[in-house]
């Protein structure tokens, strides 16, 4: 029996629209839920004082610092490494078995659970290299965790730059590196930034990889060899040990707001960049 196209069309719109609505609803629900429980605790005092009594009282200042420093270090390491790799793979090598294997490898790496990275970081950076629980160990571990994401997004962004730009550039006597520097990277920048933002987002919210490598010290770190605690880890410990659910939600709310703020800034920067160029 054939259903009239008019009805299948209506059905399709209902299902597709419904799915979108459901997604949106879940997202809004999570954000509202966390903010509702957390925001009452959040104020300047909460943000700018240290945790007391394991976090039962006091603020989250040192974890705020940890949350800024760890992803920052991760990006400083991963961005140049990832962008260089991606440019090399797309611009300097032909599509061969080897590049396919490398690409498959990065895809697999992107899918590895973060706790495995944590374990690897613990064994390699913390123990073998003797870096201890430190910002350095944590930052490097996060860098390796987000590297595949940055490589893949950069690759896509670089591939999306029209072939004709390369041809013209070569035909005017430019070398491959000049073409990459002057034409390809500037045009791929919005895509590359998206990858970096994704990387920052992933590392800000990370707990498993961080807790094994950067530790969970609540003291204010004075060098990259000190242990630190991020907001995500703080939230995990507060909730898990049942220390203070108010402060746990306060931390979660701050984290959500921070991620939103970072994303909005990135979009704004990208918009400005695109407007400036065209």
């Amino acid at each position, binding site marked *: 029996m054939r259903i009239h196209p008019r009805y299948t069309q209506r059905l399709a719109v209902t299902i597709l629209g419904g799915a979108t609505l459901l997604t949106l609803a879940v997202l809004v629900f999570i954000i509202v839920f966390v903010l509702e429980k957390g925001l009452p605790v959040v104020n300047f005092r909460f943000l700018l004082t240290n945790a007391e009594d394991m976090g039962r009282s006091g603020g989250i200042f040192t974890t705020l610092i940890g949350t800024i420093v760890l992803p920052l270090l991760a990006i400083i390491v991963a961005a140049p490494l990832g962008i260089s790799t991606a440019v090399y793979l797309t611009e300097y090598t*032909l599509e061969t078995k080897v590049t396919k294997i490398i690409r498959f490898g990065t895809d697999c790496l992107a899918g590895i659970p973060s706790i495995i990275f944590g374990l690897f970081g613990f064994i390699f950076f913390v123990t073998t290299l003797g870096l201890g629980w430190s910002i350095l160990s944590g930052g490097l571990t996060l860098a390796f965790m987000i590297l595949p994401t940055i490589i893949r997004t950069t690759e896509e962004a670089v591939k999306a730059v*029209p072939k*004709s*730009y*390369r*041809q*013209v*550039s*070569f*035909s*005017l*006597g*430019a*070398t491959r590196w*000049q073409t990459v520097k*002057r*034409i390809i990277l500037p*045009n791929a920048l919005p895509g590359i930034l998206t990858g970096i933002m994704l990387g920052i987002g992933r590392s800000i919210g990370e707990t498993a990889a961080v807790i094994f490598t950067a530790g969970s010290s609540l003291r204010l770190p004075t060098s990259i060899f000190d242990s630190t605690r991020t907001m995500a880890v703080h939230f995990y410990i507060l909730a898990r040990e049942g220390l203070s659910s108010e402060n746990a939600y306060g931390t979660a709310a701050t984290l959500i707001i921070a991620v939103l703020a970072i994303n909005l800034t990135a979009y704004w920067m990208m918009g400005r960049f695109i407007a400036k*160029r*065209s």
Partner: protein
Amino acid sequence: MTGTHQDASIISNKIEINSLDLFYGQFQALKLVDMSVQENMITALIGPSGCGKSTLLRCLNRMNDLIPGVRVKGKVLLDDSDIYDTSIEVAELRKRVGMVFQRPNPFPLSIYDNVVYGLRVAGMRNATRLKEIAEQSLRAAWLWDPLKAKLNHPALELPLDQQQRLCVARLLAVQPEVILMDEPCSALDPIATMKIEELMLELKKKYTIVIVTHNMQQAARVSDFTGYMLLGEMIEFGQTNDVFTKPTKKLTEDYITGKYG
């Protein structure tokens, strides 16, 4: 293929192609092509799609090098030196033999930055010199008057024919000796096409031009020499008048009279 002796009456050959074969992997796209390009003349390559005319054109500035799996046999002499010789610096060759592409393809930069791109990659930093050459090049492409007030505007906002002439100006800025044009008017309307053709006639006073065109009338209008290609072979080559009015080969005649193609 050594010591091709030239008739004293012939003007100097800028480019000399000797028994050129080109393979894309297993597929042979050019078969023993011989052709000579004379200085300050327009040489047109015509033929149906897939006949190898664009491939031949791209051999002249080694753009085919960018395609994986391409092999070239034979010789292409530019001022008597083989451009496929290992001692040749490809970037330098491409500055001498520039190219205008099928679709206008300015970079997404300002008009000025487009024109001076080639100079900048060649390492020129002197701002006054850059401006001088930019003006000269835009003038030569008849763009100075319409565009001099908006050099900082994005090049992609220009109408297509101005974009294409901007691509010519961008090329002239690197002071090439030969200009290769790969169907430069195929994206343009008849009026814009006419302007490009007039420009070509002006440019041939200083440059040697090789143009690939789908449009036989265009070849007849602008070129001094015409090569007719089919399935990778140069069927006929000679003065444009002769090729169009008294072709020596049946294949050429049938193509020109529109029996196939």
